[in-house]
Each structure stands twice: as C-alpha cells, then as structure tokens.
C-alpha cells in the first residue's frame, strides 16, 4: 500500500513536466508554409482584438488565395497574452522555440509591446508591433529587430495639435488615464502645443486610474478650473462614464474638446446617442473614406463577416499584409534579410501607400482627424481628413538622437 502511494507520488511529481512535453513533439514542419507568430490581448481586451483578429484572418485568406508568399502558404499561429507582459513573454517563447515561427507580430498594450520587443532583440527575432502606441518602442527603447505599424503617440498628438493650435482657446485642462500612455500623450501634446502657441496656459490636469474613473468628481474638478478647452485621453468604458457625466453637467458646453482615439469605432460606437458634438478627434470613419484600396478592403471585409470594420480590423489586416510584403521582398525567412527588406519598404494599405522608415522602423500609416457628431442616434466622424503619418514625425536629425546607437 505504502509503496504504491510513493510511486504515485514520485511519478506525479514529474508527470506535470512531462505533460508539457507532449505537445513539443509536433514540431515537424510542413515545408510549404511560413509561420507567423501572433500575440495579442484577446481575453483582456476583446472589444479591440475581435475585429483585429477578423482583420488578419481576412489578410491571410487573401494572401494564400493569391498563391502565398515565395511559393509558400502563410500560417498565423495566434496566442493570447491575457493583458500581462509576463504571459506575453511565455507566448513569445513558445512561438519562437516550439513553433519556430519566422517572425513575431501583434500586441496591443504598450508595456507588452516593449516586453516582446526586448525579447525579440535578445532572441534575434523579427518583431512587427501592430498596435502599441508608446514612442519608446521605436525611439528610446528601439532596437534593430522591432518595427511598428500604427501611428505613434507622438504622431497622433502632432496631428491633433495642428487643429488645437487653430482654436482661440487659451486656458487648457487635461484628463488622461494615469499610466504611461496617458502620461506621454499629455506630455507630447503639451510640449507641441505650447511650442506653437506660447500664449496658452495649462490650468488643470486630472489623472483618474485606468478603468476606474470616478467620473463625477473628475468632471466637476475640471470644470472648476474654468478651462476654454479640454484635452481628453480617456477611452473605452472610462470614456463612456466621462462623456455621460460631462453631458449631464454641461461641462463640454461652450468648450472645445480635443480627444485622442475617440473617433475609432471601438470607442465611438458605444457612445450612441450620448456622442458629444464637435470634439476634435483621431479615428477611423470607415463609411466615409474615398480611397480605392479602402473600398476594396471594406467590400471584402463586409462580404466575409457581414459586419463593418473597426480600426482594429485595419490594424490586424495591415499587420499581416505588411508581414507578407516584407517576407516577399526578403525572399527568405532569414531574420537579417527580413530586417534589410523591411527598412524602407513601401507597400499599399487600405489608407494608401505606407513606408516603414529605415531611420526608426516606424511605418508612415496615418490616421483620420475629424469632428464627432451624431447621426440617427449614433456617433460618427464628420469633416474627416487623412493625415499621412510621414508629415507628423520629427526631423531625421532629431530622431537619430532619440534612438540608442546600435
């Protein structure tokens, strides 16, 4: 009896480790495919990542229908990071060590993007960051293996500052989530706007915790500073609470509001009939874009999913399209060749032609700037115009001082 128990105990001890191995036997590769490892916060941020997933699935379908890349089919192996950097690294490790992917792609949150970028640098793996907005990923913590698709924090701030500088407002208040994204968005916006308009003053700032805004007191405190204009960086459910409180209390009446990301369908659509009028925002007016490539994308997307695309769909779609373009130009899955190919590569996108800059590995994908409005009880962007990312980056001389020397 005793001995049997002990045997069970001893084997249990090692069994769990062994269980993890069972999977690794499936490493044998089918020769005719290229694996791309993809990581995103699927379970933590489904509102963004579900359309994102649909976007890249559409891209994979299109690429393979057209014969794949370098005669091979594209296969995307997708992992969830649960919104945690440590779990993203586990997933990245699995993709690189076990699945032997040609490159890594994806990520949403800035800290996860940075963690994976550092991992890629360490393991010498190509990483195409899809969504993380932090400037650090291409500048202060940039590295040779990491490229980024979306317009950075700096670029979006610069686009908004162009509009904000035209406003007569002199007294500005800010409301931003208290974490790196909010802090750097406010920081860059303040710096750029003060440079253009030395006459303005910053009268108040509010820093509610991300996801936990107590909107009433925040709105009230902002209004008490009597600003002419408000910069908002809140998004998601926080934005809904902020807008509802502000609408009820009349905080946004007779004030200009400039707001990051609010025009993206992910954040604009939940506002429905609460959508404030006339906020100057960055976003994606999917039903109001006159670009032929976008028409094509929109038709294909709607045909496949019977749903309209969100900005996440564009990001997911273009991430895999960019990966395929880089692989095709490199003609190989060798990391150094892919880096050489990616630096300066130009490719079509639903927003027109984009380039991955050699100097900082940032793509020139832009964003739409417009004003929010209500139409039939729904939020829309009006008067929107595409801002090409390449016009909203600092000079090359300045960028080269921002990036660490290799």
């Amino acid at each position: 009896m005793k001995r049997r128990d002990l045997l069970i105990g001893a084997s249990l001890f090692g069994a769990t480790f062994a269980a993890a191995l069972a999977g690794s036997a499936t490493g044998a590769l089918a020769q005719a495919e290229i694996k791309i490892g993809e990581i995103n916060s699927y379970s933590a941020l489904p509102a963004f990542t579900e359309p994102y997933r649909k976007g890249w699935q559409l891209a994979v379908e299109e690429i393979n229908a057209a014969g794949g890349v370098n005669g091979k089919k594209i296969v995307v192996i997708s992992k969830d990071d649960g919104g945690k950097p440590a779990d993203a690294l586990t997933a990245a490790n699995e993709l690189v060590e076990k699945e032997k992917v040609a490159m890594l792609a994806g990520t949403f949150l800035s800290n996860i993007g940075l963690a994976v970028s550092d991992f890629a640098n360490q393991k010498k793996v190509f990483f195409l960051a899809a969504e993380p907005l932090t400037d650090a990923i291409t500048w202060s913590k940039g590295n040779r293996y990491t490229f980024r698709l979306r317009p950075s924090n700096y670029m979006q701030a610069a686009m908004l500052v162009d509009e904000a500088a035209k406003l007569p407002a002199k007294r500005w208040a800010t409301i931003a989530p208290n974490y790196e994204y909010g802090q750097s968005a406010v920081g860059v916006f303040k710096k750029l706007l003060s440079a253009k308009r030395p006459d303005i003053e910053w009268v108040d700032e509010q820093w509610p915790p991300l996801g936990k805004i107590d909107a009433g007191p925040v709105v009230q405190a902002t209004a008490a500073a009597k600003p002419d204009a408000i910069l908002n960086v809140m998004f998601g459910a926080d934005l809904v609470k902020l807008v509802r409180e502000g609408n009820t209390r009349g905080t946004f009446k007779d004030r200009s509001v400039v707001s990051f990301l609010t025009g993206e369908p992910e954040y604009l659509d939940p506002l429905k009939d609460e959508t404030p009028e006339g906020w100057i925002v960055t976003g994606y007016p999917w039903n109001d874009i006159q670009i032929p490539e976008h028409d094509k994308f929109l038709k294909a997307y709607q045909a496949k999913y019977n749903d309209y695309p969100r900005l996440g769909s564009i990001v997911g779609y273009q991430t895999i399209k960019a990966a395929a373009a880089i692989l095709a130009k490199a003609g190989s899955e060798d990391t150094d060749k892919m880096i050489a190919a990616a630096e300066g590569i130009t490719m079509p996108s639903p927003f027109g032609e984009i380039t991955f800059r050699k100097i900082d590995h940032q793509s020139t994908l832009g964003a739409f700037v417009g004003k929010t409005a209500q139409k039939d009880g729904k939020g829309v962007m009006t008067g929107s115009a595409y801002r090409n990312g390449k016009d909203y980056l600092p000079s090359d001389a300045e960028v080269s001082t921002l990036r660490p020397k290799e």
Partner: protein
Amino acid sequence: MGFYIVQFLTGLASASALFLVASGLSIIFGVTRIVNFAHGAFYMLGAYVAFTLTERLSGAFGFWGGIVLAALAVAIIGVLVEMLLLRRIYSSPELFQLLATFGLTLMVEDLVVLIWGPDDLLGRRAPGFRGAVEMFGQNVPSYDLFMIVLGPVVLGILWLLFHRTRWGILVRAATQDRDMVAALGVNQKWLFTSVFGAGVFLAALGGALQIPRDAVHHALDLRIIVEVFVVVVIGGLGSITGAFVAAVLVAELNAFGILVFPKISIILVFLVMAVVLIVRPWGLFGKPEAAARKTPGLSVRPWQPLSQNERIAFAVGVVLAALLPLIAGNYALAVGAEIAIFVIFAASLHFLMSVGGLASFGHAAYFGLGAYGVAFLAKIAGLPMIVCLALGPLLGLFGAAIFGFFAIQLSGVYFAMLTLAFAQIVWSIAFQWVPVTGGDNGILSIWPETWAAGPARFYWLSLAVAVAVVGLLRVIVFSPFGYALRGTRDSLLRSESIGIDAKRIQWTAFVIAGTAAGIGGSLFAYLKGSVFPDNIGIGLSVDALVMVLLGGVETVSGAVVGAIVFKALSIWLVSQTDWSKLILGGVIVLIVVAFPKGIVGMIETWRARSDAPSSKSAALAASQPEGAE
C-alpha cells in the same frame, strides 16, 4: 463655496454606489465567513442582465422593473451557487471558499463575453432622472441625487431587517457566534443560503443601478471587487453602518483629494485602509474577532517530517525533474523554470499561511520587490548576475521587515487586508515613480549571463533554488522556531503564557516568507528579462493564494503541488484556447468539489484512512470529516 458643496454631493453619490455593493459583501462575510471573491462577478452580472431587460422592457415601469428583476435573477443564481457549491465546503479550511469563488469569477468573465459579445454596452438613462438640477450655480445630475437618497434608504431598510425581523436577529446572532446559533437549533443551511442570496441581490442591484452612468463590459468585476473589500474592512467586518461610513469616507476623500493631488485616486483607498487598520485594528465599527473555537484539523493529525521512504520518493522526483532537459525542448524548459519559480513563491506564502496561520493577500509585494531589487542592481549598479541574485531578495526582506511589523499586530482578515494595502502601496510606487522604475513600461533587458543563459541551465538553476528553498522551509517547520510558530497559530494565549514572544516569532516568519518570495522574484526577473508593476499586482497575490489553497493549506508542502498544477494548467490553457479563464475557472471549481481540503490535503486524508487501523492519530483524522459537520 458652491463648488465644494456640489463636489461633496458628487462624492456622496459615489459613496452610495459603493455602499450598495459593500453592504452585500459585508453581510455575507459577517455570517458565513466566506471571502466572496465572486461578489464583483455578481455585480457585473447584475449590470449585464439589467442591460438586457431594460432594452427589452419599455417605459419607466420597464426600466425600474428591469433593474429589480435583474437583481432578483442574479440573486437566484447566487442561491444556486451557494446550494450547489459552497455548501459542500463550509467545513473546509478557512479561505477555501475563496478558491471556489475565484474559480466562479474567472468563468463569469469569459461567459459574459460569450453571451453579450466583446463590445462595451451603453445602457439607457433612468426615466425621470436624465438631466441635471441646478444647485449653487452648478449642475448636479438628478440621478446623483437619486443615488444620494437611495444609499441611506437601503441602510435604513437593512437596519429594520436586522433589528425588527426574526431572520435579522438570527443573522446578527450568527454574525456574533455561528456555533452558538447552530447549537440552539437554528437551521444554519437555510440561514446561510438566504444571507448569501440577500448579499448577491445587493451586489447585483448595485451593478444594475450603474447602467445609466457607466458602460457595461467584462472587466466591471475587477474594477469593483477590491475596492468593496477595502470599504468593508475599513468599516469593520459585519458592520453595515461601518460599511456606509467607510464608503462615504473613501468617496469624499477621493472627490476632494483629486483637487490637490490629481493622481491620488490610484492608491487612495489603500492608504485610508492602512491608516485606519494601524490606528483601529478592527476597522471603524468592528469588534475584535472572537478566538476561533474549532480545533484546527491539523492538531488531530500532527505534521511529521518525511519518513525514509518519502524522502527517497522526493529525491526520485527531484532527479526526474532534473533529467527533464534530456528530453524536453527549449520552450518546455522555460515553462519548467517558470513553474519552479512559482513553487518557490507559493511555498513562501504557504509557510506564512499554514505554519504561521497568517494568510497574506499581498504576498506579491515581496516577490515583486525581489524582482525590482534585481532590476535595480543589474541595470543601475551594473552588478554581475550572481551578486544580483544574492542581493536582490534583500529588497523583499526589507519590505517584509517594515510592513510585517505593522501587519502582525493584526490577525485574520484584517491582517490579510493590511498586507493587501501594503502591496498596493508598493505597486503604486513602482507604477508612479517613472524616472526610477520606468512606471508601467517597466525595466527591460535583464537577461541572464552566459553561465545561466540557455533554457537548460536556467531551468537547473531555478530547480536547484526551488528545491533548496522548499527544503529549507521544511527544516524551519520542524525546528524549535517552527514549533513556536505553530504554537502561536494554534493558540496565541497559551503560547504566550509559556513564554513565547508571539509577535517576534510571527514577525520573523513574515520576514522569512517575504525573503523566500523575493528569491522567487529575483529568478523571475531573469527568466522574463524584464520587470513590471504587474509583478507586484493583486492578480499575482491572488494566484499565490490559489496555489496554496489548491495544494492544501493544512499540509506541510502542499503548495508545491498546488503551484505545479495551477501554473502548468494555466500556461497550457492560455496557449491552447481563447476561453482559458472559463476552463481554468471550471477546473478550479471541480477541484474544489472533488478535493475539499486541497489536492495534497485530500491525498493525505485518504492515506490516513487506509492506514487507519495502524495508528490512533490517523483514526482520529479519519473521523474528522464527520466530526466537523
């Protein structure tokens, strides 16, 4: 002046919202002693169900009817949960119910996305309370005024219920002394069920009433749960009035605090709780907890050092684990190293919980401090890896020494919540002090040196440290110090009367556990090559608790098994499925039902039963489950 009055009113409205949810948690805890981690999940379900009902039903009656119906519907779910799940585990070790409700929470988070979709949902505004009322030249939302009235009304109703009905008198009696109520012939089962149902009703009502001002989404539960716990503890466990006062205190301090320190919200509730608990160890309106009357199951079957055979089995297990690099790939080895690190972390908490009887809800603080210690030494001082590994955990030691000193003045849930407050304070420093810690973008590029680089080498390093730490902790358990510590756990009064300096012993244990966690954290920094405030977060502290409970809190080293099972399962599920939380939560609930003493705890019970005729103490243990009813 008008502005300050309006700001005060706005704070009161927030306080009412908080109080509704907190009151439910408070009565559940007061009577059943369940640390109901799922309270936030019920709150969220209330909001979702209310959203669906208010969209379907029309008119003012439809809206308010929908709110109440939603709360009732969720309360029925709560009653079912209590009857089908929690009833089975009332005789389990303390805090075991936390594990069950944690499993439920995980499941609900995925289920709401499956049922209602991933998008944020915007509920309707309340009929009759859409606009604002002008007061002192400021607009005050009329819904805020409604909430301000509703809070005290609910408080009044609860007071009447508890003081003017038989049910209320029984509930209050059970809050004071459950065993006595049972001895007097009250059917505890239905009392517990009804209390649980009432508590869930209040949580769901609180959630449903948020739909006119909030968005309904799948992270609502985490947003509220910790804050509500804090409010309940500040007020004093089981005190509804206390919960109300605490909610007002917290909400008003926040409303006015942000005028001076706009970044205060992130940490305010924890600061308030730390101060209140240090000054008043049982919260504002709480009373000292009566000493536990039940003899802990342990003293019936005392712990013993491993027998010769068990040592051999253990050694075989270690050797098998050490041979893993011969057959496993790089990824499996990295996972193995991660599991080994979490074995260290779980074992350190287990030492504090099982041996010291001190359940910490903030143990990640010391794990994270160890990780940051390594990061500072490696990145700022540029020291070699071996020095960093040796000195990094010292930061965990210092943290544990400082916070432990205050924490061990308290006991039970108050101790747990004070450790949570300290952990959140450490977390917010790591999060806010951007120039030094990098804020939430963390510190990058802390990779191992060549001698420990490579998955196999790092795996061996982690395994060796894990074996050493677990072994050392066992040695301590069976040392004179360990006996003294167990003495303070089993009876504080008796141990002090025979001359044991209980506080010093507990403090030392806290420091040992914190240092061991710091060792785990140091290795973790090198495994991941980076540190983030996440390494200190509540999520990690909860994971550690789950691992300990899963293994079995009444065992010597159950946490080792708990950590291996939990970590391996969660890494595998996250990799294999998009619904990992649903499945992981389901598995945890099943384990809770199948192993009501934790995995190792149940195995030991079965072994004791099969050996029953051979030893007297084992026979006693076998009869324990019946006796515990």
